[in-house]
């Protein structure tokens, strides 16, 4: 008997249950909503509530110690980022490789300030599905790790923003490296208004509904980030900036583009 079987047998005995073949068991879920319907309703609801939700994002994330700024164009977003970078005496920025950040064209503005920018794009010529374990990936991962360890500012997009708690949802897709929102002392995230959802339950519904396989949708890591890192471990006094970034800025971009 494998260790799994022995372990589960002990649990079953504790529950006074006999082993029942999977096909004969009652279903494990006690509610099974019509997911497609639920998602459609969600989208309608979100569209209607969006302005209120955006306001809620600001309120909640600021209460959690984040900084929230509304920008209405790419140049405005870039201006914020470069200004902040200057304030923080930034030399090195590491950013996600994403459509939104590409569209902003922020790199040039940063170069002009003498700031080096690296993206967390996959090595050139790599195909996402075939990339595991290749020498190119290993080397790329290593160099990015070193850059992230020295970076002054991490710049990312978001996958979603949850209004109820002011939470950024950052998923480890291709080009969206985890360390960008984790290692540098300052983290700036740029979100489109169309990415704002109401609650965590909304996100989990979307994950459940995503195509065939929630496991694939979820990626290896979903980071729900709400504010800078914090601790109360000394005398329950709140201190910001422990191991994760000490500053979190969210730029909410409202330029009518939902792409």
């Amino acid at each position, binding site marked *: 008997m494998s260790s799994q079987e022995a372990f589960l047998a002990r649990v079953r005995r504790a529950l006074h249950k006999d082993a029942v073949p999977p096909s004969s*068991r009652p279903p494990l879920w006690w509610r099974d909503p019509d997911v497609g319907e639920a998602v459609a309703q969600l989208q309608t609801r979100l569209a209607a509530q969006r302005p209120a939700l955006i306001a809620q994002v600001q309120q909640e994330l600021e209460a959690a110690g984040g900084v929230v700024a509304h920008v209405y164009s790419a140049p405005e977003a870039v201006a914020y980022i470069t200004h902040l970078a200057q304030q923080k005496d930034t030399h090195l920025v590491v950013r996600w490789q994403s459509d939104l950040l590409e569209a902003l064209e922020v790199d040039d503005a940063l170069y002009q300030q003498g700031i080096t920018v690296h993206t967390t794009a996959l090595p050139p010529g790599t195909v996402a599905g075939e990339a595991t374990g290749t020498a190119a990936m290993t080397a790329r991962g290593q160099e990015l790790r070193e850059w992230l360890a020295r970076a002054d500012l991490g710049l990312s997009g978001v996958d979603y923003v949850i209004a109820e708690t002011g939470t950024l949802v950052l998923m480890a897709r291709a080009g969206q490296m985890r*360390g960008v929102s984790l290692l540098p002392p300052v983290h700036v995230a740029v979100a489109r208004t169309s990415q704002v959802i109401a609650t965590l339950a909304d996100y989990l519904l979307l994950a459940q509904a995503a195509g065939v396989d929630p496991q694939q949708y979820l990626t290896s890591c979903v980071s729900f980030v709400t*504010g800078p890192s914090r601790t109360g471990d000394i005398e329950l006094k709140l201190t910001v900036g422990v191991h994760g970034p000490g500053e979190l800025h969210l730029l909410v971009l409202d330029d009518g583009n939902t792409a």
Partner: protein
Amino acid sequence: MPTHIAGHTAPRRGAEHLGTAGFQEHARQALQDAPLQQALQLLVTNFVPRRVAAMAALGNAEELRTEARAIKERTMARLDEYLELFATQAHRVGVQVHWARDAAEARQIITGIAQHSGAHVIVKGKSMATEEIHLNPHLEQHGYEVVETDLGEYIIQLAGETPSHIIAPAIHKTRQQIATLLHEQLGTPYTEVIPEMTQIARRALREQFLRADMGITGANFAIAETGSIVLVTNEGNGRLSSTMPRVHVAVMGMEKVIPRLADLAVMLKVLTNSATGQKISSYVTMLTGPRRAHDLDGPEELHVVIMDNGRSAILRSANREALYCLRCGACLNVCPIYQNIGGHAYGWVYPGPIGAVLTPMFTGLDTAQHLPRASTLCGACREACPVKINIPHLLLNLRQQLVERHDTSWAERVLFTLWSWVMRHPRLYEAVIPLAALAQKPFVKQGWLSRLPAPFAGWTRSRDFKAVAARSFRQRWQETLQHERPVAHGAAPEEGLVHE
């Protein structure tokens, strides 16, 4: 500047069982410990009001608690099936699932993983499960360098102590004590300024994250539907421990599994609001397998060690609901016992009300029999619990077990045998009362006694004890009251409400 901590292979202070005499002594000392008492005041002035305000702000806290409890209840009833599903789903995304029957096996599995992966330096996120199995000393004995990265855990690791609270491990320490500790252990300049102390720790530990081969964390939830584990943290060390090293090991009790993704929303909400009064923690990390083909960071290996270690016995028992515990610490904060004696007096990993249930159930009633008794059953814990665990009733069950095992003093058994006899024979009861009134007479001053004989002497050390009344109620009833009559009962219900 030394950046890592020398191994602590000696048993840490507070870690080992105290037994009844040890508990009493430790509690006594705790009550006299002024810095500890000052630190414990924070529970009342800080932790409790924050939770109360947060739960009130939710608007539907009661419903959420009910739903959260229902999720736990239904999960436990079919725990084997949910564990099996979790394992199947986890395997699908490349997680290596390990099953540990007990602490020894868990330690063995983890050391095995470390050995197999060639690890030397291990960083740890906060995990009560790893405290439960005394993992650190074991790893250190096997030559691994283990660094606690949660600030509170880091502090107590430097101090050679065990955590005294489930979520605030160093709450028993004042800032002065911590300042001295950092200065002496790390050689950094002395400072009592909290942000400065935090930065010292951040710098010291950042290097460890970057050089570590393996990261060990706990898991707050394991989602059966997708084989995901969820870490709920604030500092970022949980994220770093599960991202930077090549190997990540998550250790969890088997009761952490929840059925579906959708269930996470409710569970997370009641957890963070109850634990720290936060709507959500700074970081919630959902990990579904090790790094994937397109990932440039993240661990290459993700291991989940699922522990029984006495949980199936709890599952079988009348105290099954103790397994619903989310390890939020809310019960500790409101418990008047914990508020007065702190966590170390409980003698094991889990202090406070839930600790008083878990400790005897995990480690045996033999050495922990004082814990179910050291409670007034006030119920504040049940009221604070996000999943409404009926801790007072669980303690009563344990007290019953102690009696059934004859783990009571001879004197107490005799006492209750006599008590039962007297209470079932009213004429005997009636005879005893005036006898007691007579016997006490020489010692009564204005209706009170300032000394009671052993074994009741404990009361009168600091309090007076009421004397038996000269005329009992039943005497007064028989002599006067039974002859008195109620006022006339009029037809209208208001009559008699305001009379005279």
